[in-house]
């Protein structure tokens, strides 16, 4: 599939955004004490901004942005519609949480809103994943690991950005251990998951063949002799993207180092330097966050670039 940078960039950013919001929701709900009001507001603002950016961008690259509102109508059948609704809905708890923090009002309301926020972010990221995971036409996406993958990367990105934001506000901040531990754990988990995913898609039997696509398998092996058009068209541009194997391999390795190895390493260092030297810890977190974000970006790019659409079976390989 054609890796459209805009889409990729913003699924990554909004993913991290929702991760941040999710963690904020959880900590406000169960461990409110661990955060200063300013930290909470900054994190909320930043997370909301990241999520919003993702949302608006995905609207902007539509053919008819002004009609975007129509996308809320088909929640019965469409994951894209559901994503839209969930994404928009998550701004309700964001607003309530924000208000509560600002006016420092009722503890109970804040808790409920925070829980709701956490829940909705999980749902939104889940919907995004399902948009891809439910497409039978793109076997590499139609895979059980895609949904957990999106969640994990949101968590990884979220955990790191969360720390980063909190530490920027208050470098001497004594953050809750469970939270600091999240990043390295998420790094390990996503590495394992992604590794498994790649092995699976590489070895998966073809979902369809040029023989089944044309029905001519009945007679024998089928090859495309002539395409319907000598130049490119929408289909070949959108779904005919081919990434050379060797590039793919290199990029996969790079991604693993960026979102796996480095965050694990730096995250762990940060974890135990935490009380000792906050500044070094901050630097580690900066490094880990940058690496992970870049890594998720590469991973997301590969997610598109490596995915093959079955329609290209009709075209068959061709050297330009």
């Amino acid at each position: 599939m054609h890796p459209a940078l805009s889409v990729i960039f913003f699924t990554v950013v909004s993913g991290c955004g929702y991760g941040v919001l999710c963690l904020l929701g959880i900590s406000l709900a169960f461990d409110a004490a661990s955060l200063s009001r300013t930290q909470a507001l900054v994190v909320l603002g930043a997370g909301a901004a990241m999520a919003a950016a993702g949302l608006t961008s995905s609207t902007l690259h539509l053919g008819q942005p002004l009609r975007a509102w129509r996308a809320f109508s088909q929640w019965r059948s469409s994951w894209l519609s559901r994503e839209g609704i969930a994404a928009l809905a998550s701004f309700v708890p964001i607003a309530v949480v924000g208000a509560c923090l600002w006016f420092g009002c009722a503890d109970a309301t804040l808790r409920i809103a925070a829980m709701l926020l956490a829940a909705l972010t999980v749902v939104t990221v889940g919907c995004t994943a399902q948009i891809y995971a439910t497409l039978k036409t793109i076997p590499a996406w139609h895979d059980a690991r895609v949904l957990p993958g999106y969640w994990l990367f949101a968590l990884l990105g979220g955990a790191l950005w969360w720390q980063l934001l909190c530490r920027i506000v208050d470098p001497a901040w004594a953050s809750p251990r469970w939270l600091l531990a999240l990043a390295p754990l998420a790094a390990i988990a996503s590495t394992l998951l992604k590794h498994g995913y790649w092995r699976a898609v590489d070895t998966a039997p073809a979902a369809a063949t040029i023989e089944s696509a044309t029905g001519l398998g009945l007679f024998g092996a089928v090859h495309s002799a002539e395409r319907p058009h000598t130049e490119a068209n929408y289909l070949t541009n959108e779904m005919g993207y081919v990434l050379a194997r060797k590039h793919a391999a290199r990029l996969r390795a790079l991604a693993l180092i960026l979102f796996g190895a480095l965050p694990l390493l730096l995250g762990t260092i940060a974890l135990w330097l935490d009380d000792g030297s906050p500044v070094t810890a901050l630097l580690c977190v900066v490094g880990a966050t940058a690496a992970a974000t870049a890594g998720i970006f590469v991973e997301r790019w590969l997610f598109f670039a490596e995915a093959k659409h079955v329609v290209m079976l009709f075209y068959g390989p061709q050297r330009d």
Partner: protein
Amino acid sequence: MTSLPAPAMKKLGLVIDLDICVGCHACAVACKEWNEDGQFGPLPDENAYAKDPLGVWFNRVHTYDVEAAHAAPLTVHFPRSCLHCETPDCVTVCPTGASYKRAEDGIVLVDEDKCIGCKLCSWACPYGAREYSAKRGVMQKCTLCVDRIYNESFEEIDRQPACVMACPTRARHFGDLGDADSAVSRLVAARGGYDLMPEMGYKPVNKYLPPRPRRDACGASEAPPAAEAADFSGAPLLRWLDKLLSR
């Protein structure tokens, strides 16, 4: 709306005969022409007279070579357009309701006034039947000529898809595949019409008729056919000397 309608009795679609399709592209161009200036048009063209000419088409014609296991190799021409599937995800994934399947006849359409151009439906179509152009920002596809087949401003014989009427080998047939004894259904039964990519589970309505068995080494064998008892060892000229003919 994009939830699929309850399975209808009527399933309008095309039956395409790969045995006689010569790959002339007449169907593709007739389609382009019919729709260009019609209510589903325009089908925008970009760089029409320059590098990378690119435009929206609802019908494309491929050519395949088939290495038959035990028979002579085949070359097969293969038109590809919307199959008006019974359970297509191109409809269910649509967030706006623009992409829908008509309950009354199963035709799958895009309501351009609702389409936001998210392209998701085209990703969901295994058959490449949907084409998008940034020029209009909406998704476009074969309409099964819904604006022809019921058209009361037309004479009866013209109430057929443009591609079907144009096809110079009459390889394209239009009709109700839901009705077991419609002409098209009988054709499908008789010729073993099949579905494309059945493993996708979209249950295409359009059917393709496979090339008929080729009669390559058919009929007479290498030996002279029929009653050929005569001995031809001798010079034939002699035989003809005393041939009695009349004019």
